[in-house]
């Protein structure tokens, strides 16, 4: 029995075959307008990341103006904690590095960094680095490679990488590398495509991609592509649109993008659109959300889709924003 096929997803004839940009614009514009929605009602705490997903997706489609800029900037301002300098996911919530990075990405897209206390953000990020170089997500202290990435992503956008001990930070990320070339959330953890993206992105920003076992890792990454064309995040798991981004962007930074079958992946991503509501879901036929919508569009952009703006593989932001900031994250040829 070809058992691994059981885990696969087959697109039937009813799934979309074209990119439905207009549908996605209205999906993102209207998302959250219906506050009776149970899921929306209980997800206040990650509103800041939601704004980043929606805004970046709209910008990639050339529709940045669809969302109210001043309202969003004001929201970010209100979420900054005057004491620690960190930014929270929503008003009343505690600051966290995950939301701080989203807020800085949003403000960079709008070119409105002046709206907040930037020195406060730098102080906050600096305060979260531990002696071994790792970062915690907030003052309570769990360590995770995601937070190392968030820290350097934030500081590089603010041009203040000097605020932290970069060498130590690199040492920690290196200690999370596994025999397969991949990375997990902390030392000894299993390799996971999402965390590999964080670590490769971290090394791209710190210009230290040299420590990666390039082909070992690229091999593992390209084995994530399944016969359906979709990519999974770990062996024998289901394909998911968000891994299209994490795997593809990592391969792009490693200069091995051509190890993926673009046509098959594109077909899979396009089949994850909802032709009625708009938006992308994890797999064909599931409920769509802004998170999968951004990563679906970003992956299509990385594969050169002409209807979308070019995306930067390290920052997951439009390339033009990165160019304007004169940032040059490392990319291997």
């Amino acid at each position, binding site marked *: *029995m*070809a*058992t*691994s*096929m059981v*885990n696969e997803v087959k697109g039937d004839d009813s799934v979309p075959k074209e990119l439905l940009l207009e549908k996605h614009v209205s999906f993102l514009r209207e998302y959250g307008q219906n506050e009776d929605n*149970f899921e929306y*009602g*209980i*997800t*206040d*705490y*990650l509103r800041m990341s939601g704004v980043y997903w929606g805004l970046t997706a709209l910008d990639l489609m050339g529709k940045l103006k669809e969302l109210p800029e001043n309202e969003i900037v004001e929201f970010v301002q209100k979420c900054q904690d005057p004491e620690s300098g960190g930014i*929270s*996911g929503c008003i*009343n*919530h*505690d600051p*966290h590095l995950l939301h701080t990075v989203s807020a800085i990405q949003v403000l960079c897209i709008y070119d409105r960094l002046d709206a907040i206390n930037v020195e406060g953000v730098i102080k906050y990020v600096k305060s979260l680095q531990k002696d071994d170089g790792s970062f915690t997500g*907030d003052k*309570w202290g*769990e360590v995770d490679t995601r937070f190392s990435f968030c820290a350097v992503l934030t500081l590089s956008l603010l041009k203040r990488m000097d605020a932290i001990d970069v060498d130590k930070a690199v040492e920690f990320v290196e200690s999370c590398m596994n*025999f*397969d070339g991949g990375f*997990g*959330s*902390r030392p*000894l*953890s*299993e*390799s*996971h495509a999402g965390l590999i993206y964080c670590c490769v992105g971290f090394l791209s920003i710190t210009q230290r991609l040299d420590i990666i076992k390039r*082909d*070992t890792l690229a*091999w593992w990454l390209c*084995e994530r592509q399944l016969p359906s064309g979709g990519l999974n995040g*770990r*062996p*024998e*798991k289901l394909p998911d649109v968000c891994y299209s981004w994490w795997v593809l962007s990592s391969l792009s930074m490693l200069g091995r993008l051509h190890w993926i079958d673009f046509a098959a992946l594109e077909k899979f991503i396009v089949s994850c659109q909802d032709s009625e509501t708009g938006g992308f879901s994890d797999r064909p036929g599931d409920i769509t959300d802004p998170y999968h919508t951004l990563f679906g569009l970003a992956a299509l952009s990385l594969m050169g889709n002409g209807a979308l703006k070019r995306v930067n593989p390290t920052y997951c932001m439009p390339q033009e924003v990165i160019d304007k900031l004169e940032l040059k994250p490392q990319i291997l040829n």
Partner: protein
Amino acid sequence: MDCDNEMLEKILKKVNGVVKEDNEIREFTLIPSVGKDRNVSPINYVWEEHALGLETWCAGLLFGYAQKQIFKWRCRKDHDTLNDYLVIALLINPEVRTFWNIKRELLDGNLLDCSTELRFSRLVLSWKPKSYEAYSYRIAIFKKIGHAKMDFREESDLLDSVTRNTPNNYHAWNHRIWCFENYMLVYETDALSRELRFSEDWIKTHVSEHTGFHYRQHVIDSLKGHKLKEIDEYSKLVLNCDSGCTAQHQILYLLIYELHKVLPDLHHHFPGHESIWYHRKYVVHTMHAHLCQIHSVDRDIPQFEFNGAAKLLDGVARSCRNGVRCLKEEQMQSTNLYKRLVLNEREFLDGDFKDEDVRLSRNYRMWLRCIVGIIV
């Protein structure tokens, strides 16, 4: 039922009453209530099963209400009231970091009881077994009470039920690794042998879960720093002799055991599983890396017979005696163990594969050549 604040308070009190009074409460869930009559209580509690359910129609309202109250009560002195709101809000959505943080503040101020909090976070995990926050909170509690006082049987029982019900649960297995590193290896003498047995049983019954394989790989890797009592039993199983080896090399016996006992069984009984092929990669890669790293003159390098073949580590021992402190690639390749490993993989790959294994074996052969540098 008209859901005004008074009504929500009533539901809230009742849920909290159950959570507080039932010391053995084990299960929480939200019950989908499409078309259900809203004039009956949304709480479904089965005492015999220590299980509590809440209808979804009121969950959103209850969460919104509790959230408002939490922000209102956060800075006040009435901690019990605050905690009642936290319990409800976190049961409905355990991913809200801020609410766990408030619990951490209460815990730090000794305003919450650690064992009650362990029970509560377990209840949350019964409903959301992938909650990163709930595992983090448990670790915060163990740090507070001291790792030595952790009840590993309880933790093991929790992880067993969680991992049984949610395949490839990344956070749960990370939690087990944390327990292994911070508790088992530190406070238990038989941790290594027990976890080796446990993980072997686990992978044999969950062949498509790479996460379980990763855990076993981690346990095997831990042999580098700890002596395993049963190493002779393993070496007898594969070599028909005592190992008499040092801790530095005992990992080799385990890897040979893996290559000759565990993997053939798995490949045979469960064809087409990528996770098994990845495990094979780990075993071969680690053996190869270990051979490359041997660099000290070591009288204790095992010189065992292996499936009737010549002495495996002969070459290693010879070069060491010659005073070569660092085995170069070429010398390593002249060792019998290396030759035997290559031969083993060649014979294995020359076998008859069907369906998905045809593709997987082709990928594996290419990986051996391009990544490890073993041409078969």
